[in-house]
């Protein structure tokens, strides 16, 4: 089998997996639960809660409503993307569905490498997550353009990079779990659990500084938290810089710390490069684990 034809097989399997995900209405809707919940919560009460928190820090200064709206909107969409890149990745996988429907058997009796089949699941999972994440980003950008747009090109690049790396992180983590899963019940359980919990433990629903010390220490050990802070920086750096023109530096620092635009690891400030390194290295480690597991599984099957 030439590399070219194997690549063609990979392309077709991947596009088949993506098509199936978007055709399966239940799987598609379940994977959108987290961003939908966040959007509803934002409309119902989160927007006013963020506004109140922001105004409590900036007491004595008259902050332009456009800045406030841009800030709360940026906070919302950084939360939406921080959670969606992981939860959609967990809920959009086709690997287990194929195992249940026995479609994987059909692929195994075709002249296609097992590694190609596995890789097609990861790629399809990643693309599906990216498609949804970029649609959410587009919605976010349109919203911000309506209420107040302060993003720079660098901020935009940071957000795009973070979407890609966080989606990849979520996809690989999900596929490691799906490799050992044969039941739709387990998939639904894990998907629901991740959708419900992830937003809390990555600091997407509530700012990290409002958590207890123990919880703060715990979430600072999770790579997802670093991705959340990176999203905060992408969406809020511009608007905070704009606020800096009218607000004192101490107040700006309070806003940045209070709304997770800055992160500290057990008292040490983590730079933007540090955040990028943590999420990138974590993704590479997961990738190594995924390849190792598949290699070991392949050897076990050959026995």
């Amino acid at each position, binding site marked *: *089998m030439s590399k070219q*034809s194997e690549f*063609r*097989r990979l392309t*077709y*399997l991947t*596009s*088949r997996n993506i*098509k*199936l995900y978007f*055709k*399966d209405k239940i799987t598609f809707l379940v994977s959108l639960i987290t961003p939908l919940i966040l959007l509803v919560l934002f409309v119902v009460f989160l927007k006013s809660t963020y506004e109140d928190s922001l105004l409590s820090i900036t007491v004595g200064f008259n902050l332009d409503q456009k800045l406030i709206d841009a800030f709360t909107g940026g906070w919302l969409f950084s939360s939406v993307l921080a959670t969606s890149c992981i939860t959609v990745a967990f809920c959009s996988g086709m690997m287990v569905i194929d195992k249940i*429907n*026995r*479609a994987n*058997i*059909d*692929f*195994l*009796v*075709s*002249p*296609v*490498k097992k590694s190609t089949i596995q890789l097609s699941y990861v790629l399809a999972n990643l693309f599906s997550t990216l498609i949804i994440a970029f649609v959410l980003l587009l919605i976010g950008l349109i919203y911000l353009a309506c209420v107040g747009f302060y993003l720079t090109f660098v901020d935009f690049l940071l957000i795009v990079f973070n979407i890609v790396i966080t989606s990849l992180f979520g996809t690989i983590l999900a596929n490691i779990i799906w490799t050992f899963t044969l039941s739709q019940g387990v998939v639904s359980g894990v998907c629901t659990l991740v959708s419900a919990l992830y937003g809390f433990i990555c600091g997407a629903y509530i700012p990290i500084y409002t958590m207890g010390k123990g919880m703060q220490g715990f979430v600072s050990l999770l790579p997802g938290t670093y991705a959340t802070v990176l999203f905060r920086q992408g969406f809020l750096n511009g608007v905070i810089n704009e606020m800096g023109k009218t607000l004192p530096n101490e107040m700006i620092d309070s806003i940045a710390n209070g709304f997770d635009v800055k992160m500290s690891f057990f008292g040490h400030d983590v730079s933007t490069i540090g955040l990028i390194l943590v999420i990138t290295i974590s993704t590479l480690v997961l990738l190594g684990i995924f390849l190792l597991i598949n290699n070991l599984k392949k050897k076990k*099957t*050959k*026995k």
Partner: protein
Amino acid sequence: MSHIIEIKNLKKYFGDTKAVDDISFYVETGNLFAFLGLNGAGKSTTINILVGLLTKDSGECFVNNTSIDDINKILPNIGIVFQSSVLDKNLSVYDNLRYRAMLYGMNKKEFEANLEYFINKLDLQEILKKQFDKLSGGQKRKVDIVRALIHKPKILILDEPTTGLDPKTRKLVWDMINEFRKTTNLTVLLTTHYMEEASIADNVVIIDGGKIVAEGSPLTLKNKYASDFIKAYKYDNEIIEILKKDHIPYKKDSKYLEIKFKNTDDAKNFLVEHSTLFSDIEIVKGSMDDVFLTVTGKELKENV
């Protein structure tokens, strides 16, 4: 005729269970070969080894003169229809076939050309755009078979393809398979527990408890293992006395008298000897059910 499939001393154990226990057989090119046995007899295990889904413990398997150790060389020559469909329910018939065809390295042009052949042969046009899940049982089976043949394999493996289908759909499936056998030199390896399907095969292997207990053409097997019967509709009652005296087993009901013989020769000789006592008779050959019962001691129908 050459052997397109050859299996030598194949063994596969799952713990203490001997799923396949030292079996050897071959399939000739272009034949319809039936693998007959109860559920758990070892049929599917053998097929799964042949297509690389399971590894063998020992023995040798060759497909088209290539060892299954080199499975990727073998798989392009095999098409398989599973007991239940494994196609994507949410995709259209066309998409299902296209995605599967591409796995065999076909480009779009080759796929379209092959598909055209089946569209003409099987009247697929009207269901091509339909979602697979919306098809009837018969249409689904039709698509399963097209999927198995889309890359023009030399061997078609049918793993209990008609189990659970109604008689009309079973006929449709067999009409399709026979049509392809007529027009191509397709070899068909069938696993079944339906006697009527096994009886149309060129060769039959009966497997029980992982071992081959009988093999040969249906006629050879019937001659060797099944009894023959004389069914007498009009006869002289004197015949009953003769049967009793000679200890020949018989059954009598209001419609006919059924006399059991070891083989056709015995039945023929008995008729010649007592021809004046019969006026309306027929000789019935033993069925594959009788063969199966004789060689395994088990009723196949119970398991269907």
